C-alpha cells in the first residue's frame, strides 16, 4: 500500500466512516490501507460522502493498477463541492460531485478497465462472494440486444440523415434526425424507462444523481424530448448505475434489474447499442486505409456500403460548403460514427454561440481553408467520443 511520502497532506475525516484513511497529496489521492470491504454507496447521506466513496473507489482502482490515480485538475472541484455543501447549496454540491465523478477522457479507458477488474474480484474477495463473471454479464446484454426477434427497429428516417444543408444561414436547419421529437408512444415508453432508472438509482442509494443530471438544478427533472436527448439521458443513467454495481457487485440491489433495463432501453432506442461504444482508433473508423476519392457520396457508398449497425458515415469536412466532391468524398474524410453521436455532432455544429459572434461553428467555418475544416472536424470527433 502507499505510504505517506512527501508534501503537505491533510486527512480527510469523511473517509473515516468508511474505514479508509485517504488523503490528497498534491494531485495524488493516497490510501493508507485497503478500504473496499467497508464501502457502501452513500448517496442517501448526501453528495459529499458519495463523492468521497467514489474517490476511494478510484483509489482502489489505482491499487488494482499498482500506481497512483491522479486527481489532477479535479481537486478544485472537490473543494468547490465542499464549499457549496457548507453554504447549504446541496444541489450545487451534488452537481459538482457529479462532474468530478465523470473522469476526463485520458482516464476513461483506464477507469473502465480497472473497474472491470475490480468488479471481478474486489467485492468477492472481501465478502466471501463468488467472483462476478463480468464478461458473461456483458455477453448477456449483447445477446439480448442482438437476437430479440421482437425488438423494434427505428427507421433511419431521411435518406440524407445527418448531413448538413446548403443554406449558409442555417443555424436552425431541419436535417438532423436526432432533433426529431419522440412520438407520443415513444415518449410514454421513454418515460417509463426513465422512471425505472430513477427507481434503480434510488435503490442503489443515489436518488439525486439522475435528478441533478437531468435538470441541472433544483427544478423538477425534465424528461428527454428527442431521441438524441433520450440517448444521453439513458447513457448517463447507465454510467451512474454501473458505479453502484462497482461498489456493490452482486450485493447491489440493482444487479438483477439492470440488464433488463438496458435491454428495454435498447428496444425503444436501438441506437443506444452503438451510442455506448467507446471511442475508436482512426483505423477502425475509416472505410479503407488506402486513399480513394469519389464523385459523390452515393458512389462512395456503392463501394463501401453502409457504415454498420446504427452507425452513419460522417464527413469531417462537410459537404456543400464550397469544396469539390472529391475533396469531401474520399476515404480520409469520411468516417464511421455511432448514429446518436453523429446527431450530437450535427447539433453541436449548428448551434449559434456567443464566442463566434452568434454564428454556429458551421457558419464560422464557411470560407476558411480545408485544413481548418479538417482540424475542427477532428477535434469535434474526439470531443464527441467517436475518435480516441
Amino acid at each position, binding site marked *: 500500500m502507499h505510504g505517506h511520502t512527501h508534501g503537505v497532506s491533510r486527512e480527510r475525516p469523511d473517509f473515516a466512516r468508511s474505514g479508509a484513511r485517504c488523503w490528497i497529496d498534491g494531485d495524488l489521492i493516497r490510501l493508507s490501507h485497503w478500504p473496499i470491504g467497508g464501502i457502501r454507496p452513500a448517496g442517501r447521506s448526501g453528495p459529499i460522502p458519495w463523492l468521497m466513496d467514489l474517490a476511494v473507489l478510484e483509489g482502489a482502482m489505482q491499487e488494482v493498477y499498482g500506481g497512483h490515480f491522479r486527481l489532477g*485538475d*479535479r481537486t*478544485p*472541484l472537490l473543494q*468547490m463541492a465542499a464549499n457549496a455543501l457548507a453554504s447549504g*447549496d446541496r*444541489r*450545487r454540491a451534488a*452537481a459538482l460531485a*457529479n*462532474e*468530478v465523478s*465523470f*473522469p*476526463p*477522457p485520458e482516464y476513461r479507458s483506464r477507469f473502465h478497465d480497472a473497474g472491470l477488474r475490480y468488479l471481478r474480484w474486489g467485492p468477492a474477495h472481501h465478502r466471501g462472494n463468488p467472483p462476478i463473471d463480468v464478461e458473461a454479464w456483458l455477453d448477456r446484454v449483447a445477446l439480448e440486444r442482438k437476437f430479440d426477434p421482437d425488438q423494434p427497429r427505428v427507421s433511419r428516417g431521411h435518406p440524407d440523415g445527418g448531413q448538413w444543408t446548403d443554406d449558409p444561414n442555417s*443555424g*436552425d*436547419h*431541419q436535417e*438532423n434526425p*436526432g*432533433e426529431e421529437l419522440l412520438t407520443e408512444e415513444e415518449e410514454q415508453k421513454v418515460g417509463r424507462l426513465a422512471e425505472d432508472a430513477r427507481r434503480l438509482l434510488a435503490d442503489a442509494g443515489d436518488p439525486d444523481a439522475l435528478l441533478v*443530471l437531468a435538470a*441541472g*438544478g*433544483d*427544478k423538477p427533472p*425534465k424528461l*428527454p*424530448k*428527442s431521441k*438524441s*436527448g433520450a440517448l*444521453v*439521458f439513458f*447513457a*448517463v443513467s447507465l*454510467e451512474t448505475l454501473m458505479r453502484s454495481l462497482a461498489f456493490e457487485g452482486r450485493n447491489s440491489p440493482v444487479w438483477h434489474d439492470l440488464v433488463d433495463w438496458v435491454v428495454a432501453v435498447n428496444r425503444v432506442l436501438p441506437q443506444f447499442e452503438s451510442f455506448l461504444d467507446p471511442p475508436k482508433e482512426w483505423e477502425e473508423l475509416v472505410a479503407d486505409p488506402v486513399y480513394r476519392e469519389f464523385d459523390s457520396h452515393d458512389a462512395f457508398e456503392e463501394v463501401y456500403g453502409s457504415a454498420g449497425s446504427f452507425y452513419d458515415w460522417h464527413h469531417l469536412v462537410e459537404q456543400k460548403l464550397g469544396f469539390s466532391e472529391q475533396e469531401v468524398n474520399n476515404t480520409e474524410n469520411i468516417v464511421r460514427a455511432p448514429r446518436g453521436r453523429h*446527431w*450530437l455532432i*450535427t*447539433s*453541436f455544429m*449548428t*448551434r*449559434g*454561440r*456567443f*464566442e*463566434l*459572434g*452568434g454564428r*454556429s*461553428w458551421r457558419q464560422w467555418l464557411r470560407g476558411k481553408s480545408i485544413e481548418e475544416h479538417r482540424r475542427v472536424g477532428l*477535434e*469535434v470527433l474526439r*470531443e*464527441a467520443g467517436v475518435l480516441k
Partner: protein
Amino acid sequence: MMANLKDLSGEALRERYIDLAILMGEDGDNCLTRSYNRRLAKMTKIVDELWSRSAIDVLLPNLRHENPWVRYLSAANCWEVAPEQAEATLEEVGRIRYGVVGMDARMDLNLIRSGKAVLRRPSQAS
C-alpha cells in the same frame, strides 16, 4: 420584447437570462437546434440591453449558478468584464463529461485561447 426589456430592472433581466439559459440547456441536451438558436437571439437582446446600461456585471453571479448551461452561457457574456472568472468557469464546465455542455465549453475555450475568437459584446461582434 425589446420594449419590455427597457422597463426591466437589471435583476429582472438577469432572471430572464437565467430562465432562457435553462431552456437553452434543455434544447442543447435534446439537440433541438432551431429552438436553441431562437432563444439565443432573445438572450442576445438581453445582453445588449445590459451593455447599453453598462450593467453586464449583473450576470456575474450566474458564474456560480447550479445549472451548467447558465454558467457556460454567462461566462461568454462576462468575459469582457471578468475574463479570469469567465475563463475559470469555462474550464470548470468543460470538465463535465455528460451531455453536451462540457463539449461546448471545451471547444469554445480552445478557440478563444488559439486567438481565433474574441469575446465581445454581441453588438460589436463581427
